[in-house]
């Protein structure tokens, strides 16, 4: 018979659970639930981190640190439905800390230009959209992130956030409206 490999199953295959349910499961010690939250919010967190630190490797580090910090503090989160917004606040704080420590770190003359300039990891359009995304109110940023960065449907977002689908649709519509206006103003 041929080689068989140890199965490695994807925790992301379960039916969609709400953030509040996953947070409760994490508090109860079910580790895979946190893995699901990481998968769910990875791009949003990396976006927030990248916006602040403008450099891919540091953004990756900040992303991981933000999730670790979120895990360690999750028992202080009373309303699990607000996990997304809460997590992004953590990511922003961590990113700001990374920027501060980078500014304090001694830099050789030859490295200054490298530190000061974007590493070009995002295209101009993406960088501009990220800038606009970061201006959105927290709850709108979360639903746009879940929809357009993570690819969830409106109904899945409704289940994730615990909001009615109509509310999610309205929030998305308002967010797109804002983004369109800002985008038009900046490119007119």
């Amino acid at each position, binding site marked *: 018979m041929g080689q068989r490999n140890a199965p490695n*199953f994807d925790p992301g295959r379960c039916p969609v659970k709400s953030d509040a349910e996953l947070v409760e499961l994490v508090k109860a010690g079910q*580790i895979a639930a946190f893995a699901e939250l990481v*998968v769910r919010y990875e791009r949003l967190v990396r976006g927030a981190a990248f916006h602040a630190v403008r450099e891919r490797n540091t953004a990756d580090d900040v992303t991981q640190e933000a999730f670790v910090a979120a895990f360690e503090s999750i028992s202080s989160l009373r309303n699990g439905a607000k996990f997304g917004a809460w997590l992004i606040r953590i990511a922003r704080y961590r990113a700001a800390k990374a920027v501060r420590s980078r500014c304090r770190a001694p830099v050789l003359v030859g490295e200054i230009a490298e530190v000061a300039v974007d590493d070009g990891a995002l295209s101009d359009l993406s960088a501009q959209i990220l800038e606009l995304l970061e201006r959105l109110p927290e709850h709108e940023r979360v639903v746009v992130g879940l929809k357009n960065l993570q690819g969830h449907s409106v109904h899945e977002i409704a289940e994730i956030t615990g909001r009615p689908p109509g509310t999610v649709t309205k929030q998305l519509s308002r967010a797109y409206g804002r983004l369109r206006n800002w985008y038009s103003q900046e490119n007119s």
Partner: protein
Amino acid sequence: MMTNPDVIEKALEQLGQELGTQPSLAQRVLEDVCNRAARELTPVRPKRRVWFGRRSLVAASALGLVAALTAWWLLKPATLYARVLDALDSAKTVHVSGWTREVFRKWPLEAPPKKVDGSKTRHAVDAWYWTDASEDPASYEKFGPVVVIRRGGNLREYQEDVKLLFVSEASRPKNYAERFSMLADHLKMLAAPGLSKEKLETRSEGGRSLSGWQVTQGNRREEFWLDAHSNLPVRFSRWSIRPEGNAQIFELAFSFDESVPAGVVRYEPPQTETIRYGGSSHNAELAWRQHVQDIGRRLQDEPMAGRVALLPRKNGKTFSLRQWTLPTPDHKFWVMPLDVDQQQRLSLRDFFRLRAATMVGDRAHGTWRVPREYHGLELRHDLVYADGTPWQEWAQVVLGHFGLELTDIVEQRTVWIARQDGRKLKPWADVNPPVPYIVKNGKEVKGLVAPGVGHMLRPVTMDELLMDFNTAIDSRELTARLPIIIDETGLPRAPAFDPQKYKSGQEFYDTIVKPNYCVASDAPLFEGKNSLGLAREWYAREFGITFVEEQRPMTVHVVRSKQKPD
């Protein structure tokens, strides 16, 4: 300046792609959490994990019901299309009969049919929609030579004229329309913007009042007749508008709440060798199965020179790491995926860790010695080998690709013999975590049970627990010089996964492994000097397993650069 709405959404999607994902981020985050916890751990106090009990489930169900009712209230149908769907949703069963000149196929014909039917051929239509015993939507649709059956999210289409079976696995239908896979698109025309929709004169038929709509799109015209009282569809027809006169394409009649014939409920497509896989683009397992089938077909046309071949991936095609070595449809060959994911190729180190090494046996983790300078060599290939080929032969072919070879030596190794005291093991959910609580800044964090972390993030078997150790202790260096655990507990072992018996590895795990062989949902793997003590204590406390250190002669598989023959 006006902005097209699509511009923003497309730009956001592009941003999502550019931001990307880090491979195994979740795993690394959790390992980081647990390693920190283990480093800060003060004396162990077992603390029971809280699993959701019946009361929580009842509360969750009640909440779900409230949410569903709220959603129903918010989504009460406003359009004609929504009213029809809502009416269909209230029917226990739906039966559609009639005829069609068009045969709809999920999997398109791969070659023109040998015998051209001609546009005049009418095919019988017989379709049923119901909810099965497990509350999953089910359907059977026979449109001439094509039968499509759906059970939950699992769809199979058998094309009798070309003896082809198409298998697609996706999520369950999201709404009632999706159950009517063939008809849903037509019904959607009732709601399509910009189409000419004309209300027809109300008719009386069989004591019912029928309201009708005619929808025209390009050279197609559809006519819908609905029960004016219930909004249930009664008849549905389509014409092709031609200068020489309109030609009817199909005529379908609806009836409701009839008993579904047993033959329809039990229908299974016949066995066939031509199988195609599809479904969600995220369904990497199906994509991989399809790829293996394609290789199998190619091997029939272009046989391999020997028993083993390393085939480079064409066009940079990649599959998820979580794929299994699978047999080709004729069972003469096995195909092993040698890649990681979209971002990465498979390193030679990972080839040994993930593909060549096994949990137990003569090529177990901890028995491989691979010099560091070879770790980073990369693969993006399919390894194909004839059934019955010894593993040494296919491993040599992979190494030969880089001018390397494998040689076995026997040497004294430090081994830890795992023995068990004979106690009956607890169910895996009752096993206490190896690190019972999180300590942050010297204080226990209240309200959080810290889990140990196994690399699999799911309940694991005893083999997997011990393998975790053998893998983790030597996974970076592959030196085969560190202690290795040998399992002499005598605990029952899960059978090997047989891809012929189970639809997927997940199904095998859910039905066989998890209920019968899983022993814990954590693993005591941490960094730092406390780690081994914690692990030993946990094994003894939770499973009655202790370890005895010995020196034993063991075979080590050594990778070296190819030697010239003497």
